Every structure is written in structure tokens, then in C-alpha cells.
């Protein structure tokens, strides 16, 4: 046996064997204090055993694993205490005021669970931009935090810096300028006055993107009162508008409603409206007669008209009928003009004066305050800035860099201003050049007041807590003045001092005050005759800027609803272009053509106006544009509007008016138009007649389709294989659309978007003819070729139809809103294999999205082509990066209407959710459905009363009479689809 050798590591081991052995047993030399961190020293019994340790280990591993799994984050917070006025599922309405410097409206805001989701008209008409402004509230492209030189700064340091600088400037007697749009808020005016008493040399200057300077100054010259009169288009029998687009935005928002009031054929009297213009406007397209002139002829024609009226000269042949008509209707006519030339406006004043229109149709003693800015003041400000005379500039909701023709001068001057503060909704072209930017509150987050017209006031109240870290202009002013009360209190005190019942006024949204106004002194200016000129037509192509109903002055250009709203006349969306007549285009070699999928392409040109050249300007051939004139819409060409509004088209503000040098260049532009065909092709789609014929025979022009049967000739609705639905009992929802009253203003289209969560699809998809609009306004131009002409001249059908495709150079225009017609014998219903679209007892055509499998057969078989298919997923899809792909933008969605998924058909439901709500309300109160309650989004947005919705079984409702009216017709009645939507023939006041 061999002895096992033992090796020692050292003498210590050899000598002290027991201790070494003991140490060897311990794995860790020092004891790990597991008990310390796993047990509670105060409770001795909680010492941690090995098993406990393993339990802890197991639990923590499991917990960590579970925690790392993603749980859905629900970003909703329950009410701890339910606010008394909010009942989930019930909408609250607040009266407030919309004013953004360009548009004014007294409105009702529908809020759901604290979110404003829809705007309704309260007292004034609402246009498309007002309707869409609720989406601008949720624009995540807004300025969110106060910034200094592009860095976020706290309000406390911002305020202290601004205050100290203001005091320093004030001490040095430096000039402080506050630049705002026309200020219609009396309380803000008072605040600014207080501000100027706090600081020295404060000057308040107003700047309007589209100013009425020339009219204001002309009135100053003519009548010594620098105000904008109220035009009573409802009282005028003859209207002569020289380029003034009073339906599309010129003047007061109520013009549209007033104008139509005077044109309801039911009264057997319609105003005679002449439009003398070069660019086809919405107003011009509604005119009885439209004369195309060049802008340079305007002054001469007006001079000629004046001289004729005072009996000094013969009238120009082109305006002979107009002039005679005006002369015969003294005191019952209106002459308006869009010229920005003061002399021209003085001539207009003289004409109206001679026609005795003042205080009858043109009310100067009760003026409108919506436009007050003076171009002269703005220009002197710019020169002062350039001369270094301005030390502080505080701007509020103005964008001079963008809207001023001499914006570059402004930019240059701005560099010499010491303190630059912008309170603005956006970090726009101007605000981005300022040192300090204070995010302003949207009007739906603000307190405020407005004094839009003489004697009329309206209040603004917040309908939602600020979405961002904003502070409204007035609050900022007060802080900078050292007042700590806040503007809300200031406002309330302001009106309490006037003896206004604040609560009532806030509830109503508006109130009237009897004010004294010194009637203006009607006089002629000295040397007025020197203003008169001969008609001299410029021999070059003239440029003028125009305003689009969708984009206005461009302040809401980051609003995807407005960008996608097709222009009522060109039907193009997401675009800005030069409009040109076909003849001018031919001369310049410019073309428009359709590519293989039907989409419109156009030539591009280089355009030089007033020394400014834009290249690659697309040209849209626009019937109605006068020969040798071109125009372009303002509101585009934004560079700091946000992701939707940036880099679309060109900025027409910079071009102004004047001679246009146009050169065709290589390249082409892709338009996105929702309507590619412009004429009715001789079809009975919009039925029309003249007023004279209508008075003789109310059913004139309304020829019903008839079929020859064994019983003789029968109207189409009698010839059917189907059994009728029972629509005698219960409600029978019908909508009447009066084509005589529809101006094509498209407010209803936006209202429909807001109410029904209609998705925005973007330019590329619109170009593929895939707009999702549930309600569209078809626009047709007349053509030189008619069936009558073809029959008279023996023209073959092929040639006739080919020529019918071309609209006239100065066409008559019709607008026809088309939504789902809710056919009671619906072609869509019987072709759906899964019965996803069905008929209701109440005359509506339902669409069950859940059931739809997307065969699109219904859309093919719809003769009105109102069904829309979800080609893609339009919500929460980065490819459609609009409001439905944005956490803020989604807040505008109406919770009563489902957001449709990909692959299903959707269409107008006649706002079934609104009908259901009214029916439930009636059920709860135990009263029958009240007529006035029943509305669709479109009918309630309609300022002219063209759309009337109601229960046709209710004999007291106007729809009952409208359905029996001799003007009533169903679209494509020969198909006998028996729609619940019907139209009233268009009556033109022409010979």
C-alpha cells in the first residue's frame, strides 16, 4: 500500500489544522447578509430560509418576465368625480365665436365628453373654413410650448425677460408696436389701451391678409367715415358685382345667406345679378349674367357706368342691360367691386350714391368692423422697421412674411427690431423669425368677445382645456402689463360694467346693444371727376389673385379637410395652379390632358408678375376665365404651415395684380381633381328653367320620365315590378335640395366630414379617383353644343357627344350636391350577396359595415356613384398621415359614428346617428319628434336653406310641401329608384 502523500500550502496549515479545515468548509469567507435584505429585522420570525429565498427568486423572475410583456396601454382616465354637465354619450353645446383674423362666425360647438367635435352655425353663416376649424384645434403641428430662439423656455423666464425688455424700451421712449389682424374684440382694444398707458409709445397696427383698405379709404374720401358698410343683398333687386366674390369670402359672412334670400324663386321675384369679372368666382358662377372683362377694364367700365347713370354719356354695349336695369331700380340695387384701387372704389361709391342705394341696400350707418386694417399703416410700419425705429414688435395671429406682397421688406426690417414677440398658433413663416414665440390658444380654447357689426356682439368661450402649453394673447398682454387677474375675469368685468347679463350672453353666444352712430355725411370728394377714365384694355396677359373657398388666406392650410376639399369650380384638391381660358392656353401652347387612369395632368409654365418669377407653375384650363387673364389662389405656397400645408403650390400673395409674363416650359404637373368631366352631356341631371317660365308654369323644365305601357304613357314611378315599402306609417325621412338656392359653397361637405368621420386620403389617392367624400358637390358647365343645336344643324350623335365634352368659354354653371339618394327601390340593396345594405322602414338605405365583405357590386350598381370603398386602412396608417393617424387629430372623431375598416363600403347614412338621438330624446320626453330638431349635418350647415331635411309623413314640416312642389324631381327619375332625396329645379333669372 502506498501512503497518500499530503501536501501543505504552508506551515500554518500544518500547524493549525482545525482552523484551516473550518475555513475550507465556508465557501464564502464573509457571510452574505441575505437575511438583511430579505427579512424584516423588527419581526424576528421573518428570517429568510433557503426555500424562501428560492421563492423570492422565482417570484421576482416571473414578475420581471411578466412585466416585460407589453400590456395594452389604455390612455383613458376615468372621472373621479363626474362633472355634472357631462353625461357620457350626450353631447353638450356651447355658444362661442370663431375669429381667426380672416373668418368670423358666431357658432355653436358640439362637444362630446369634453371634446369639441363639430361646429354649427349660431347666428352667422358658416363657411367651409369655419366648419373645418374644429380640426385645426387638434392640429399637432401647432406651436406647443413657449420658445425663445427655437428653444423651449418657461413662461416665468419668458415673461420676466419680455417685461424687463419692454420696461427698458419704454424708459428709452422706444417704439413698441402691437400687430394684430382687424381687432374686433372691444375688450382686447381696452387691454391694448391699458398696455399703452403702462408702456410708452405703444402703437397698435392692424394687418389683414386680404385687406379692404381701398373701400375703407374710399368711404373716408366720399363720406368721411372709414368703415365697411353692410350690404343688404336680400333687399337688392339688381346686383352688379365687379369682381367681388361676396359668396366666396368678400365682405360679411352673412352675404351668402342674404343674397339667396333675395333669390328664392318661391317668392316669384329674384334679384337680377350681373357679375363682371375676369376670374370665375363662386359668386360669378351663381350670377344671372356674367361678363368677362380684363382687370384693366374695370375702372373704365365703372366710369362709363357712372357717366351713363348721371346722363353724361352713352353706355358701353356690354353693360347696357345692366346699366338700364340699375337705373330703373334706384334704391333697390347694389354695385360692389373688389378693386384695391381707392379711386375705383370712390367711383363705385358715386354710382351707388347716384342710384340712391345708401341706407337702403348699403348701410353705412351700421357698418361692419370685420376689416379695419390700413395698408398705409402697415407700409409705414415696414419702413419704420427698416429704419430701425421700431424697438419692440408684438404680433398676434398675423403672418406678414407670408401674406404681404412686400413680405421680404418686412423680413428685412424685422432684423432691426430689438424685441420680437409672436403670439401665434403656429410657428409659421413670420413667427419663426421672432425671438419669442408664445403659443396662442385656438379660439375653441380661448375667452374672448367680438364686435363684428354695428350693435352686434358675440362672446367666445373655451370648450376644451388647452391641449398644449398655450396662453392666449390677451392673457400674455396682461401678464406683461403686470396684471394678474387673467383675461377671463377682465372680460366678465368689462361686460358687467356695460350692464350685460353675462350668463345669458355667454349662453346665447351673442347679444345686441343699441349704439349711437352718427350718420355719415354723404358728399362727393373734390376733383372726383378726375378719377374717371376711359375703358382701356391692356394688351398683355393680366394676372390677378383669387381666393379659394377651401383655403381662404391660408391660415388653416395645415387642415387636411380643407386641403382635400375640392375647389367648387375646378374640382381640384391639394393644389394651387394658374387658371387660364382655353383660348389663352391654346395661344401659349399650354395643355391639360387626362392620363390612362383618367387623372388630370397639365403643362407647367414660368410665371413672372411684378418682377417675381415662379417656375414650374401648373396651369389649369378653367372655363369662365376671361381671355388673356390668368389667376392664382392665395393661401398656398406655405413653407411653415405644417406637414399637410407645406410646399403646395405657390404664394400668390407675393404676386399681387399686374402684367403676367408666361412661358411654357418642359414638364408636366399632376393634378388631383375629384371631377374630371365638366359638362352634363345633354342629360337631364340638373333640370332648370327661367324665372319667367317658372312663373307661368311652376313645373316648367321639370319634365318627368314616362314609359309607354299597356295602360298608355305612365310616369316612371308607376312602372315597376317591385312592391313598395310601407312608408305611410312612422317617419319617412326625406331631404330636399333646392338647386336654385345652392351656391356651391361646400360648407356642407366639411360638415359631413366632421359629423361622419370621413377619412382624408391624400393627393395621390384623390388622383386615383378615390376620394371618400360622402357628399360631393357636382359642378357642371354648359356647353356650346346642345341636343337642340345638333338636331337643328343635322350633327351626328358621335360628333355631338364629342363636342358636348367641351364647356363653353363663358359657361353657365350649376352646382348639385349629391349624397346617397336613399333610394326606396335601391339598385345597391338587391345586389349585395350578404345583405349588408338594406332598407329601413323610415326610407333610408342602411349600410352595415360589419356585414360588408367588400364585393363592391353595390358601388358599381349605384347610378349616382355615391358609395365609397375603403381601399386601404385609412386610420392609424402611416401612409395616410392625416388626422386619423394622429393622437390629437383623432380627438375630432365623432364617437357616435364608427371609423370604417379596410375593405368595406361606406356612404351617406343621412346622419342616422343624429336621427336616432332625436328619436331617443323624443322617446324619453314622451313627446313626438320636433320638426326643428331633425337635421342632417349638411342641412344644418347650409346657410341658404337649400337643403331641407325632415319627415315627409309630417304634414306640418316644410319637407311635406317641398315633396309636392312642382319643381321637385328625383335625380335620374327614369330609373325609378324612388330616392328619398329629391331636388328642386334650378330657376335662372334670365331671359
Amino acid at each position, binding site marked *: 500500500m502506498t501512503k497518500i502523500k499530503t501536501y501543505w500550502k504552508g506551515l500554518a496549515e500544518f500547524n493549525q489544522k482545525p482552523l484551516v479545515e473550518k475555513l475550507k468548509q465556508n465557501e464564502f469567507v464573509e457571510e452574505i447578509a441575505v437575511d438583511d435584505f430579505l427579512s424584516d429585522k423588527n419581526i424576528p420570525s421573518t428570517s429568510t430560509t433557503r426555500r424562501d429565498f428560492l421563492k423570492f427568486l422565482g417570484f421576482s423572475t416571473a414578475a420581471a418576465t411578466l412585466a416585460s410583456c407589453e400590456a395594452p396601454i389604455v390612455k383613458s382616465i376615468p372621472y373621479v368625480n363626474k362633472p355634472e354637465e357631462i353625461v357620457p354619450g350626450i353631447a353638450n353645446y356651447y355658444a362661442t365665436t370663431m375669429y381667426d383674423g380672416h373668418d368670423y362666425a358666431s357658432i355653436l360647438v358640439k362637444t362630446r365628453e369634453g371634446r369639441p367635435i363639430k361646429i354649427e352655425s349660431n347666428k352667422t353663416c358658416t363657411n367651409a373654413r369655419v366648419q373645418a376649424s374644429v380640426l385645426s384645434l387638434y392640429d399637432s403641428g401647432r406651436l406647443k410650448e413657449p420658445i425663445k430662439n427655437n428653444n423651449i423656455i418657461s413662461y416665468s423666464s419668458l415673461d420676466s425677460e419680455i417685461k424687463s425688455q419692454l420696461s427698458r424700451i419704454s424708459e428709452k421712449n422706444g417704439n413698441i408696436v402691437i400687430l394684430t389682424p382687424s381687432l374686433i374684440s372691444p375688450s382686447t382694444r381696452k387691454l391694448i389701451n391699458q398696455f399703452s398707458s403702462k408702456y410708452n409709445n405703444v402703437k397698435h397696427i392692424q394687418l389683414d391678409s386680404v385687406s379692404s383698405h381701398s373701400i375703407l379709404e374710399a368711404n373716408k374720401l366720399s363720406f368721411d367715415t372709414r368703415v365697411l358698410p353692410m350690404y343688404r343683398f336680400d333687399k337688392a333687386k339688381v346686383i352688379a358685382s365687379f369682381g367681388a366674390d361676396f359668396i366666396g369670402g368678400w365682405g360679411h359672412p352673412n352675404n351668402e345667406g342674404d343674397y339667396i334670400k333675395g333669390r328664392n324663386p318661391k317668392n316669384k321675384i329674384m334679384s337680377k345679378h350681373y357679375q363682371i369679372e375676369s376670374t370665375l368666382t363662386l359668386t360669378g358662377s351663381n350670377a344671372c349674367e356674367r361678363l368677362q372683362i380684363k382687370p384693366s377694364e374695370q375702372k373704365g367700365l365703372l366710369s362709363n357706368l357712372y357717366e351713363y347713370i348721371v346722363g353724361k354719356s352713352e353706355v358701353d354695349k356690354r353693360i347696357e342691360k345692366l346699366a338700364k336695369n340699375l337705373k330703373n331700380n334706384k334704391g333697390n340695387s347694389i354695385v360692389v367691386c373688389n378693386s384695391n384701387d381707392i379711386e375705383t372704389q370712390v367711383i363705385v361709391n358715386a354710382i351707388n350714391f347716384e342710384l340712391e342705394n345708401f341706407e337702403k341696400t348699403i348701410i353705412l350707418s351700421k357698418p361692419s368692423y370685420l376689416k379695419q386694417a390700413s395698408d398705409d399703416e402697415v407700409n409705414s410700419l415696414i419702413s419704420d422697421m427698416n429704419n430701425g425705429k421700431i424697438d419692440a414688435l408684438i404680433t398676434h395671429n398675423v403672418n406678414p412674411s407670408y401674406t404681404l406682397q412686400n413680405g421680404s421688406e418686412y423680413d428685412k426690417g424685422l432684423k432691426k427690431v430689438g424685441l420680437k414677440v409672436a403670439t401665434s398658433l403656429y410657428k409659421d413663416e413670420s413667427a419663426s423669425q421672432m425671438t419669442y414665440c408664445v403659443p396662442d390658444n385656438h379660439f375653441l380654447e380661448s375667452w374672448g368677445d367680438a364686435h363684428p357689426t354695428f350693435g352686434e356682439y358675440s362672446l367666445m368661450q373655451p370648450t376644451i382645456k388647452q391641449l398644449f402649453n398655450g396662453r392666449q394673447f390677451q392673457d400674455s398682454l396682461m401678464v406683461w402689463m403686470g396684471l394678474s387677474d387673467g383675461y377671463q375675469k377682465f372680460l366678465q368685468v368689462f361686460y358687467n360694467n356695460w350692464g350685460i347679463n353675462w350668463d345669458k350672453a355667454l349662453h346665447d353666444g351673442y347679444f345686441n346693444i343699441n349704439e349711437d352712430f352718427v350718420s355719415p355725411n354723404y358728399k362727393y370728394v373734390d376733383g372726383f371727376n378726375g378719377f374717371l377714365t376711359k375703358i382701356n384694355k391692356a394688351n398683355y396677359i393680366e394676372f390677378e389673385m383669387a381666393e379659394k373657398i377651401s383655403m381662404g388666406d391660408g391660415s388653416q392650410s395645415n387642415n387636411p379637410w380643407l386641403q382635400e376639399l375640392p375647389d367648387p369650380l375646378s374640382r381640384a384638391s391639394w393644389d394651387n395652379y394658374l387658371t387660364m381660358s382655353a383660348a389663352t392656353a391654346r395661344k401659349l401652347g399650354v395643355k391639360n390632358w*387626362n*392620363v*390612362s*387612369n*383618367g387623372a388630370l395632368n397639365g403643362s407647367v409654365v414660368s410665371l413672372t408678375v411684378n418682377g417675381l418669377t415662379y417656375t414650374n407653375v401648373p396651369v389649369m384650363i378653367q372655363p369662365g376665365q376671361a381671355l388673356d387673364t390668368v389667376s392664382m389662389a392665395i393661401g398656398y405656397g406655405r413653407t411653415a404651415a405644417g406637414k399637410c400645408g407645406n410646399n403646395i403650390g405657390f404664394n400668390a400673395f407675393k404676386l399681387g395684380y399686374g402684367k403676367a409674363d408666361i412661358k411654357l416650359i418642359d414638364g408636366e404637373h399632376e393634378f388631383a381633381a375629384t*371631377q*374630371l*368631366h*365638366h*359638362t*352634363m*352631356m345633354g*342629360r337631364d*341631371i340638373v333640370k332648370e328653367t327661367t324665372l319667367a317660365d317658372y312663373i307661368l308654369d311652376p313645373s316648367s323644365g321639370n319634365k318627368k320620365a314616362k314609359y309607354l305601357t299597356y295602360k298608355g304613357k305612365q310616369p316612371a314611378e308607376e312602372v315597376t315590378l317591385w312592391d313598395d315599402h310601407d312608408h305611410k306609417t312612422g317617419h319617412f325621412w326625406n331631404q330636399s335640395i333646392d338647386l336654385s338656392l345652392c351656391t356651391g359653397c361646400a360648407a356642407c361637405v366639411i360638415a359631413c366630414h366632421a359629423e361622419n368621420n370621413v377619412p382624408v386620403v391624400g393627393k395621390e*389617392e384623390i388622383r*386615383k*379617383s*378615390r*376620394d371618400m367624400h360622402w357628399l360631393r358637390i*357636382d*359642378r*357642371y358647365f354648359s356647353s356650346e353644343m346642345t341636343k337642340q343645336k345638333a338636331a337643328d344643324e343635322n350633327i351626328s*350623335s*358621335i360628333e355631338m*357627344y*364629342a363636342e358636348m365634352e367641351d364647356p363653353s368659354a363663358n359657361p353657365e354653371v350649376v352646382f348639385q350636391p*349629391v349624397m346617397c339618394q336613399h333610394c326606396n327601390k335601391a339598385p345597391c340593396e*338587391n*345586389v*349585395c*350577396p*350578404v*345583405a349588408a345594405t338594406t332598407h329601413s322602414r323610415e326610407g333610408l338605405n342602411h349600410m352595415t359595415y360589419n*356585414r360588408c*365583405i*367588400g*364585393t*363592391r*357590386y353595390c*358601388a*358599381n*350598381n349605384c*347610378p*349616382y*356613384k355615391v*358609395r*365609397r*370603398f*375603403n*381601399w*386601404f*386602412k385609412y386610420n392609424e396608417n402611416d401612409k395616410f398621415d392625416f388626422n386619423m393617424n394622429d393622437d390629437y387629430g383623432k380627438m375630432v372623431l365623432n364617437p357616435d359614428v364608427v371609423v370604417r*375598416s*379596410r*375593405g368595406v*363600403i361606406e356612404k351617406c347614412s343621412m346622419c342616422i346617428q343624429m336621427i336616432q338621438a332625436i328619436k331617443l330624446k323624443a322617446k324619453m320626453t314622451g313627446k313626438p319628434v320636433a320638426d326643428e330638431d331633425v337635421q342632417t349635418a349638411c342641412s344644418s350647415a347650409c346657410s341658404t336653406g337649400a337643403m331641407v331635411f325632415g319627415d315627409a309623413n309630417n304634414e306640418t314640416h316644410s319637407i311635406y310641401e317641398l315633396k309636392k312642389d312642382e319643381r321637385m324631381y328625383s*335625380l*335620374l327619375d327614369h*330609373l325609378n*329608384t324612388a330616392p328619398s332625396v329629391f331636388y328642386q329645379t334650378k330657376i335662372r333669372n334670365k331671359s
Partner: protein
Amino acid sequence: MQRESEIRDPLILGKKSYHDITRDVSRPVEGKANKYWWALFSLSLVLFGWGVLCILYTVGTGIGSWGLNKTINWAWDITNFVWWIGIGHAGTLISAVLLLFRQKWRMAINRSAEAMTIFGVVQAGLFPVIHMGRPWLAYWVFPIPNQFGSLWVNFNSPLLWDVFAISTYLTVSTVFWYIGLIPDFAMLRDRMSAKIAPMKKKLYSFLAFGWTGKAKHWQRFEEVSLVLAGLATPLVFSVHSIVSMDFATSVIPGWHTTIFPPYFVLGALFSGFAMVETLLIIMRKVVNLESYITIKHVVYMNVIILLTGSLVGTAYITELFMAWYSGVEYEQYAFINRATGPYWWSYALMMGCNVLTPQLYWIKSIRESFIATFVLSIFVNIGMWFERFVIIVTSLHRDFLPSSWTMFSPTFIDIGVYLGTIGFFFVLFLMYARTFPVIAQAELKTIVKSSGSEYKK
């Protein structure tokens, strides 16, 4: 034993014994594929794969990947659907109607024609599913009892009629085809060696359903063939009639036409025979069936093409006449627009290929030429595709309200899906050519002694 007139041309060329026929028919199955087969198969497989990708993309992103729009909600999808369904029709006509009419010449071609039918219907059936916005819910078109409440299909909808028509058609065609295949599978089974190819032997044994060739088997075979032929015959007319009702029952000018059912059936037979010719003229070369698929067969088919083509042309002209005669301006415009509007070229292609080219068959030398027939059959296939395109797209693109008028342009996905179905079709057909007896040899053997050229001397 049948007797056939001496002056009739023989249907089987060369000196063919029963065994020769057996060998010729089983050669493609037993032998190795040649390089032509592999080349065609690879190409088809690539196309098929591409089509699958395009379909997956469509299902993944949405129908928006196609060129459709708010006005034209069907275009290539339904064009392809109708085209493929139409192609199928010749197969059923050949195997069912010609059986009832005791046309012996069908025997050489009915197997492949019927295969073409089934593969064509498979392609056609794809489109109604993938053109849906939510194809994963396609089963909702079946009247399946469900727990969704009172949900049921809409029996008024022609699309639902399609579901029944096509599923019936596919079922009957497949059963009919299979019954005919049983004796031939048995023949293949018997030739297989269990040692060399045990799997194949097992497979064909299974497919042959225990066929032993007893007299009783033959008697039942004949009976069931007749019964199925009787069942399939009405289908030849009903399926495309019902497909045509998708259009005929609608309100769209250009669709809303009572002439559609017969017009569509004739068009279907017309295009079906053209496709049979296209396929068989290639196949007789590739798998050496020149003795069985002879110029005589081709001439017979050409005559049918000439007849149906002329009838289709008559239908076109009748449509034009009716548009004019009706006095309905929408109808008139629809046809003026077809001929002179932006899609005039597709109308011209349709007219040229479908009305003019078959008229060339009046000329004997063209009628009796394989090459000319092949070229003309391609023309007819193109023309018939465009017929459906014209009906669908040019009717929709300018319907009632000019405000909605627009046009259609296919995307590469549209094209990809179509090419994919062509690829799929040929993949199936080529696989069939290598695994199935491509000629109904059992039936063919019954006419060797009456119509074989050797016996005619």
C-alpha cells in the same frame, strides 16, 4: 361494332393497335419529362409564384393596390373571372353535349378539355374571393346556419347565384371527369410495376377505385357517364347565363341587357374552344399525340369557332342596334362611347379579334392549318378577354352622372395577379399532362376499328 362511312376522314392516324394506344397514352406518365416540359413548367411556376405574392400583397394592404376607383369598382378582377369561367365551357360542351350527340371526335380531346375546364374554373374561383375587401369573410356568401342573429345571404343577389352556379359546375365537372378517368387509371395501375414504382402503383391503385374491367363495370360506367352528361349539359348553358346576370340584372347602361345570357354562353364556348386549340396544338407536339389529335379534330373545332364567333358578332351588332332602337340616350351613349370614347382601342380589339378573325376560317387552307389555327386561337383568347374588359370597364367608366366619369389603369399588382393565374393554370395543366392519361384511351379504343386510318383503307 360500329360502322363508319368510308368517306369520313379517319380520327386516328397511323397504324395503331390497342396496345399502341395504351403505350402512347401512358408514355408521358411513365417516361421522363423532356426539356420543353421543364422549361414551360419552370416559367409557369415563376408566374404562379409572382401571382401568389401579388395576391398576398393585395390581401395584406387592401384592394387599393389595384387600379380601381370610386367609379370603376371592378376591372381586371372580374374580367379575368369571366374570362376563365368562359374558357371552361368548351370542356363541358365537348365531354357532355358531344357525348349525348355521339360525336366520336370528342374522344381524343375531351380529357384535356375537361381538365382545362376544371383548372380554368379554379382560376376563375380565385377572383371573386380575392377581389373582396375582406376575403377572410368570404364564407359569408354561403348560406351557413350561424349564430350572428338573423343574418342570412341575400338570394336576390346575382353574386350569390354565381356562388351556387360555379360550385355546382365545379363539382359536376370534376365528378364527370373523374368517372371517365377510372378505367384509364386502372390501365396505368396495371402497367406499373410494384417493384420499380411502388408508390405510383399504390397511388394509381387507389385512384382506379378497384376497377377490374368487368362487363358490369363497363355497363355502370356507360350509364353514369350518360347521367352525368345529362346533368352537365344544362350547366354548359346555366353557368355563363348566371355569370352574365351579374351584369344583366344591374342598372348600368351597357350591362343592363337581356341579350346577355345567350351572348355570354356563346362567347364562352367561343373562347373555350379557342383555348382548347391553343393547348392541344402545343400538347400534341410536346407529348407526341399527333396521331390522335389530328387536323380533323382541329377543323371540327374551327367550325364551332366560326359558328360561335359569328353568333357573338351578331350579338355585338344586336347590342348596337338595340341601343339605337331603344331611343334611351344613356344606352346610346354607352355604345357610342365604347366605339369612339377613350377606350375605343379595346372595342376595336374586341371586334377585330372576335368578329373578324374567325371569319378567316371560311378559307379551307386556314381552317386546315395547325399554325394558322394556333395563331387565330390566340387572337380569340385576347379578343374574348377584351370583350369582358369592354363590358365591365367601358360601361362603368362613363355611366349616368358625368361628374363621376373617370378611367381605369391597371397597376403591376393587377397584372401580376392575372399572370399569376395563367401561371397557376399551366402549372396544373402541365402536372396533369405528366400524371394523368391525357387521352380517354378506353373510349378511344372503341373507335380504332371504325375510325382508325389503318382500318379505313
